[in-house]
């Protein structure tokens, strides 16, 4: 491989899309496949500028169906391959991700959410939560990291490659248009120098040796003949998935000790939530904070531990209840009331959450 893209840790000020391109380089991603769509375009723009310098590759495909399947092909060939998309592109991407799920192909997809449904806006939303977690005609056997800052975009993009290849579930980094387009400072580093393991990639197809003579041929399929056969396969996957949960599940909490109201948010909205909690704590309000980082698998255990101690949970999101459903499902049987704060396709500020939470305390 050519020279290392990042040697010493350095502080930079850049857009989230640029941070993703650097992260993919740092994670030694070998090829990107992609199709233009706002707000992820600049991931490709930076990648196409940087990739040749570090002997990495790029293919602009004819659409996202193709970007998804070429990514599957790259991974099957044994490369750390990835793609990035958003909105209607994410919709098209799901066909390939459904195959990845069925065939346990460790694809990495970066999603920068925009408004939906349809073309809607190119700006921002959290409306691709359900799609990214459960898209396709399957069970949502995926890993989904919801980032909230540029540093996290960098960290989790690197991590996504490792986790995808370790567990062989399609892995998603779920950002949004704000994170994609804003500039923020962060540290770039070389994960190897930090002692972080790199994804160990290997070919599923095209291995050395004559098939049937020197090695078993690779015969990979996604079609099964009987209900029982399929049931057995999926049950095995579900077992693997459930075994993985305690090893991968991530969340962030603060101020929970005596919290009467806990605000739950993911992605960039969690920053507004954390800020609101800080302000309200200074006013003496007993308010706490919970943020799932992995949306799939969801940190159900931790949430069920917190919930009974609170008087109310407020769920804030830039969607009409997509996180709310995950929370509801996790808390089935609990009696703590859930209070929605839904702004589909609209950003949420700390100030408005302060106000909303105050009203929930009844002034």
């Amino acid at each position, binding site marked *: 491989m050519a020279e290392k893209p990042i040697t010493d840790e350095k502080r930079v000020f850049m857009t989230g899309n640029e941070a993703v391109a650097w992260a993919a380089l740092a994670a030694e991603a070998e090829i990107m496949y992609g*199709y*233009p*769509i*706002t707000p992820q*375009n600049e991931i*490709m*723009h930076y990648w*196409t*500028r940087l990739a*040749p310098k570090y002997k990495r590759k*790029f293919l*602009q495909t*004819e*659409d*996202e169906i193709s970007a998804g399947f070429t990514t599957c092909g790259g991974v099957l060939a044994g490369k750390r391959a990835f793609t990035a998309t958003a909105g*209607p592109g994410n919709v098209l991407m799901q066909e390939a991700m459904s195959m990845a799920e069925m065939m346990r192909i460790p694809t990495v997809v970066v999603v920068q959410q925009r408004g939906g449904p*349809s*073309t809607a806006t190119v700006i921002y939303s959290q409306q691709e939560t359900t799609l990214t977690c459960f898209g396709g005609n399957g069970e949502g056997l995926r890993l989904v990291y919801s980032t909230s800052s540029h540093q996290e975009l960098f960290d989790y993009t690197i991590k996504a490659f490792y986790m995808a290849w370790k567990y062989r579930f399609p892995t998603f980094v779920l950002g949004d248009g704000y994170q994609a387009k804003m500039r923020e400072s962060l540290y770039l580093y070389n994960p190897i120098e930090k002692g972080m393991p790199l994804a160990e990639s290997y070919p599923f197809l095209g291995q050395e040796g004559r098939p049937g003579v020197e090695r078993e041929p690779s015969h990979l399929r996604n079609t099964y003949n009987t209900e029982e056969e399929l049931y057995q396969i999926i049950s095995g996957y579900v077992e693997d998935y459930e075994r993985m949960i305690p090893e991968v599940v991530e969340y962030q909490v603060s101020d929970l000790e005596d919290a009467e109201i806990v605000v739950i948010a993911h992605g960039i909205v969690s920053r507004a939530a954390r800020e609101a909690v800080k302000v309200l704590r200074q006013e003496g309000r007993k308010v706490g904070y919970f943020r799932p980082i992995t949306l799939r698998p969801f940190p159900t255990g931790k949430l069920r531990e917190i919930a009974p101690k609170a008087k109310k949970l407020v769920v804030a999101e830039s969607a009409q209840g997509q996180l709310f459903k995950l929370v509801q499902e996790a808390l089935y049987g609990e009696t703590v009331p859930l209070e929605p704060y839904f702004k589909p396709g609209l950003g949420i500020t700390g100030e408005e959450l302060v106000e909303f939470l105050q009203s929930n305390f009844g002034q």
Partner: protein
Amino acid sequence: MATVPKMPKSWRVETKPHKFCPGCGHGLVLKALGEAIDELDIQDRVVFGCDIGCSLLAWDFFNVDIVQTHHGRTTPVMVGVKRARPDRICIAYMGDGGGYAIGAQHLVNAATRNEKITAILVNNCNYGMTGGQMAPTTLPEMKTETTPYGRDVEETGYPTQGPEMVAAITREGAYTARGTVAKVRQLKNYLKKALQNQLEGKGFSFVEALSGCPTNWSTNAKATWAFLEENMTKYFKVGEVKVPVKEEE
């Protein structure tokens, strides 16, 4: 005193000035189309579909019924309308990315089935709406946001020859041509013939229009026209590619 240029009757005055960038070719294509609609007197029968791409900005452009569809999907939406209402004149308006990349399968299959619609494709050598990435029509060596070192034909192939491809896969009755905004009257005539072909129920009709994108080409007026008339027409030949055989009288 400034004189207001004459607008086609079918244009919607309330939505002018239009929303394209100054110097954009889309406005000229739609001017030629407006005149063709006027001359054929079909305004009350036209259903216009626009793609996602800069063509989406035409969603309220004419005093005709218009639907904005998805990127690449305008052809099948118009096919759907036409099959349900054969008395309507259905126009699918799209960019080169919409028609030759993401929507290529629809273009190919609509052409193969000889669907009685008119597809108009604006070739501006790039993805305008998303900020200037490579399109299937990007010229060899041309720099775009995703070919920052120039389009390498070894890596990405040669620019799509749309009308030639459509002509090759359609049967008798289809009409295909390539016009340019540098020759608006000729373009209008092609569009008129394409619409006439639909009116007569002969077959699929397809017109590609060479068009400028000064914003993403980063060109001034002079350089825009030079690129259009020299670089583009060298590769993309302007003219009719396939014309239905005249029936014996």
